[in-house]
């Protein structure tokens, strides 16, 4: 089949089913916008993980006089406990995992605390000796924090070994649930747009069943019978996915970069370059979905 002729068949089909074509465009547009948002959210989570996990440290809190009896029966950690911890951190078994560590005494902890909670009432009541003396440890691989936990958990004078990532994990859990929700909605919408595409194409085929009958009779190949219908679905879905791509980029430009990034200046956010990775994905998903749905829909008109 000649290209020009096929193009006129496709245009004819699109024109004849205009209302349905518009609904395909809208449904693919919305569903792919959800897909795009979900992927951006995943990218954002990845980016934040990289950023924060690199900064997350493992804290080895030493006992104070106000520590609970159960973990610190002897009260304030003595000088020999600090030496013991330091020795272990420098021992050949741990050295390969540790990038660096430093010790924070009561006064430094107090200074940090005052800075962190400046203006807060709690800052006035806390005293230096209530704050733990702490060994802050940076690991080469933050995933290996259990090694430290195991090495120091039982040591007398150590109140707790805490991986800061455990705080972050809660935040990421919430973000993950949000992106999972977006993905589920996107999946549902994609299913409905696939069904809509196949219904529309079936309708289009039905309104052209005379042509189809004649095409089969005179020996048009299955491919050339199918192609105009598949293209019809693909063209409609393509328009929808381009709209979704534009929306995702606009979301990044105006909402993420324009609003979020300015109100939360210390967090790194996804940018247009990340969006540029998502847009081809959306277009590819739109095209593949439409081609598969309309190809399947037209199949039963091809029985010889």
């Amino acid at each position, binding site marked *: 089949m000649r290209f020009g*002729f096929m193009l006129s068949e496709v245009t004819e089909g699109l024109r004849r089913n205009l209302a349905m074509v518009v609904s395909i465009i809208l449904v693919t547009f919305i569903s792919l916008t959800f897909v795009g948002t979900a992927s951006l959210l995943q990218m954002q989570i990845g980016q934040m993980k990289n950023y924060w996990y690199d900064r997350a440290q493992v804290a080895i809190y030493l006992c104070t006089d106000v520590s609970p009896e159960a973990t610190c029966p002897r009260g304030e950690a003595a000088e020999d406990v600090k030496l013991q911890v330091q020795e272990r951190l420098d021992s050949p078994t741990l050295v390969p995992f540790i990038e660096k560590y430093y010790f924070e005494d009561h006064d430094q902890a107090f200074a940090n605390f005052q800075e962190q909670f400046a203006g807060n009432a709690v800052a006035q009541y806390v005293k230096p000796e209530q704050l733990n003396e702490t060994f802050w440890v940076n690991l080469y691989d933050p995933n290996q924090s259990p090694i430290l936990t195991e090495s120091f958990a039982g040591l007398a004078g150590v109140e707790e070994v805490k991986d800061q990532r455990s705080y972050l994990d809660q935040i990421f859990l919430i973000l993950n649930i949000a992106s999972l929700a977006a993905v589920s909605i996107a999946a549902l919408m994609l299913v409905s747009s696939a069904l809509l595409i196949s219904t529309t194409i079936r309708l289009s085929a039905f309104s052209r069943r*005379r042509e189809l009958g004649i095409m089969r009779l005179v020996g048009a190949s299955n491919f050339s019978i199918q192609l105009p219908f598949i293209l019809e679905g693909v063209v409609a879905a393509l328009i929808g996915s381009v709209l979704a791509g534009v929306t995702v980029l606009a979301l990044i430009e105006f909402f993420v970069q324009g609003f979020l990034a300015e109100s939360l200046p210390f967090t790194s956010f996804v940018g247009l370059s990340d969006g540029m990775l998502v847009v081809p994905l959306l277009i590819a998903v739109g095209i593949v979905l439409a081609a598969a749905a309309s190809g399947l829909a037209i199949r039963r008109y091809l029985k010889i």
Partner: protein
Amino acid sequence: MISIQNVTKKYKGTPRPALDQVSLEIEKGDFVFLVGASGSGKSSLMRLMLREDVPSSGSVHVLGENLVGLPARKVPFFRRRLGVVFQDFRLLPNKTVSQNVAFSLQVIGKSEGFIQEAVPDVLRLVGLGEKGDRLPSELSGGEQQRVALARAIVNKPAILLADEPTGNLDPTTSEGIMSLLNTINLGGTTVVMATHERGIVDQMKKRVVELSHGQIVRDQVAGGYGVRD
């Protein structure tokens, strides 16, 4: 050209086969009438020749192809070498006469140049040289069937299958269609025509194959429709 051997065709839900051990040879350039009452198996036989159906048993060879084993993807290419017309013309109502004929060439990928030459030629051959721009609804039944014939032969098929082509036409118009079919046959195209019409068969003096209850009961050179019953 067409060789049918021991063909039996059963349809689901009916105990009696539509075709029962039918064998038939049709040579190049033949003009064959398939006659018989409704339900005698004429249409089933035509469907097998067009590979719209495959037999339950037996073999069908058309134009050197074994239609029983022909894979589905090769069927379109086989059909390009055949022309078909039906009782109900099957024209596209929103396309002109020329566009109707051109459509069948466009969908098999013929070039615009070829189409622009072949369509007026074939319309002149069927006597519609002046009516290329008309819509089917503006034509008489006979003229519509001529358009269908033009569409069937524009690609120069070796075989023309005609399933009751005069079924919807009055006797005078039918005569015109028959003489056109004869002209096409004289040009070397094998014509197989299923019909009910006694007058036409008697007049043409061509080979007659009569079917009854799915069996061939008569195969006569230069025969008539048969005994009046």
